[in-house]
């Protein structure tokens, strides 16, 4: 078992009730796990919200995070998708300083990254990009010389590939669970 810390990505389904987000966040704070990124939004079911939580953790900590998150009464399902080759996306809005002369170069870079320009002002451009964290970091790097006026990122959202929906990550058998599947998610 590895003691190496890697980015773990958890998909967490919770009941859509007031205060649930603070319960989840409070748990991570209390157990001294540092959240890299946390997103929350509605799902295909109105009574269920979905979080994607990214945490630096070793394998053992990741298991304990799953077990602790499950202890929250409002949590319906936890899926550690880290090793499932998940689809992971981040969205960023990037405002750069770009006057008339610099604009063509900025547009060219944006198109290389398949980013979209969504607002043009006389001395600024706002670019929208969706992709993995690395891709967005890459675009930010090449745009930096223009002057980053404002950047906002949503944080990562994640989903398993293929037809299979999220699965319950095993907690009954924490010490030795292998692929972690007990049953499929159905609410």
């Amino acid at each position, binding site marked *: 078992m590895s003691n190496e810390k890697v980015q773990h990505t958890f998909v967490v389904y919770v009941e859509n009730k007031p205060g649930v987000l603070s319960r989840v966040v409070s748990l991570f704070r209390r157990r001294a796990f540092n959240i890299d990124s946390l997103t929350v939004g509605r799902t295909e079911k109105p009574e269920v919200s979905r979080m994607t939580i990214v945490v630096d953790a070793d394998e053992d900590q990741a298991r304990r995070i799953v077990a602790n998150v499950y202890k929250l009464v409002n949590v319906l399902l936890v899926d550690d998708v880290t090793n499932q080759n998940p689809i992971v996306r981040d969205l960023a809005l990037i405002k750069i300083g770009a006057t008339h002369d610099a604009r063509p170069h900025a547009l060219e870079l944006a198109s290389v990254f398949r980013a979209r320009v969504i607002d043009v002002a006389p001395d600024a451009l706002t670019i929208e990009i969706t992709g993995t964290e690395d891709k967005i970091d890459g675009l930010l790097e090449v745009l930096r010389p223009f002057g980053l006026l404002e950047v906002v990122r949503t944080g990562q959202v994640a989903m398993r590939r293929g037809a299979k929906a999220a699965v319950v990550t095993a907690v009954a058998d924490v010490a*030795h669970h292998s692929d972690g599947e007990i049953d499929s998610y159905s609410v």
Partner: protein
Amino acid sequence: MDESKPKLIGARILWECLEREGVRTVFGYPGGAILPAYDALKHSSIHHILVRHEQGATHMADGYARATGEVGVAIATSGPGATNMVTGIATAMMDSSPIVCITGQVGSKLLGSDAFQETDITGVTLPITKHNYLVTHASEIAPAVREAFYIAKSGRPGPVLIDITKDAQQTACEFDWDAAAPKLRGYRPDLSPAQSEYEKAIELIRAAKRPLILAGHGISISGAEKEVLAFAERTSIPMALTLLGLGSLPASHILNLGMMGMHGEAWVNTTIQEADLLLAFGMRFDDRVTGNLKTYAPNAKKIHVDIDPAEINKNVKVDVALVGDLRNILQELTPRVETTNRNEWLGTIRRMKGDAAVRDIQNLPDNGHLYAAHVINDLWHETRSGNAIIVTDVGQHQMWEAQYYKHEHPRSLVTSGGLGTMGFALPAGVGAKVARPDADVWVVAGDGGFQMTMAELATIVQEKLKVNIAIINNGYLGMVRQWQEFFYDRNYEATPLLSPDFAKLAEAYGIKSIVVSKRSEVVPAVRAAQAHDGPVLIDFQVEQEDTVYPMVAAGAGLHEMIRRPSPIVETATDE
């Protein structure tokens, strides 16, 4: 809408639900935001016990829960009433005690406005409750109460708080008990291990030469006392107990070694260090029982049986985890393990026990000095045949109680383990007595902890409760003084303690009091207390600078025990 359902105001729904949950007594303190509930109490058969401080109410509910396994209920108003409950809630959380706390809250329209006596108590208690509710409509009261009781009691028990706005108590709605049944889709209190884990456990048990059971609080919570004994007897595996495990297995049982950990018996800690297999039954490898994790049980494989998967591999890395209810798991496991003769291992342990010094104090000559160990030992002798519950506070007296009182019966010791809450004993003793009126309840507290919650003496008198109180009075915050002696160069900063004349204090409350300063007076005092029809307070004035031995210093290995200086060790014999 079903016209046949009765309409009730929220306050009446609250009491109706508590009655249907089997509640007969609640511990509480009224105030503005909870007044509608108190007003509706006249319609209920539930007995309300007026406490003197809301912390007391929570400890009473906790003591009630620990003495019976049933949910204890505390009730308070908003703001300071609610925040005064925080220590009691945290105490119950750390020791997995099922309590439900009900707090009044300002009207829902005032929420968030810093209204008079408004505190965000669901926010405050979020990390120290198993779950909590903010109820703003009368229709949410019944589902919240039903879920709260279910959550508090099931799985790994714990405290649940329900904060009810004043208007939710005052408005009427239909009351439908059946429709309020818990709907908790995400809550899984009933995990069970995979068959493959049983097989791994059975193989480890079969291969072990020096196995040891670590018996914790989970045994009495699960009601697995018989199952653990059956397992131990079938496999001839000895048992070491945590503080909260005391009582769950009879102290007189030949396989019961006694308490482990920081102030555990020396041979018990040595046995842990020499074991080749540890079977942790309903315990969580707290730092007070493991000492330094790097040197903990270096030769042992570990099997961890616990209902809470988050405890697995938290402090100690284990080889097999059986997650689920201990009683169910042992019913499955015991018939599948081999019966074994372990004379060699048990003989080794017996020889280690021969070296023990922990009972040395009993062999001191009666030179006029009274030692706490004398008091505990004599109290044990005088109460052992009965139906006693000892409720201790936190500190030196608590450890001496654990060492010298031989608990034979489940739930006969009530003590704050995980949080170590001074001031716990007196109110928890009230709760235990209310829960089990036939029991002989003894509160054993230090002079420090007793003064933290001694206002509850009035509650005892007002409720006409027969609770006996033994103050182990040494004029110091003794355990802190002991740490200063060992680790802070005897700099007794802020530990010498001035106390009132406890006998006169008791008299002021109308409580009979006895002062004891010689060993010969201990037994007569205990007998007099037992014979008296009413509460009795005994002020045991003991040796001031006595020390709890053995001791594993915080962060030291279990094998690195500080032992009592040698002259006394040489006089040691076994009880």
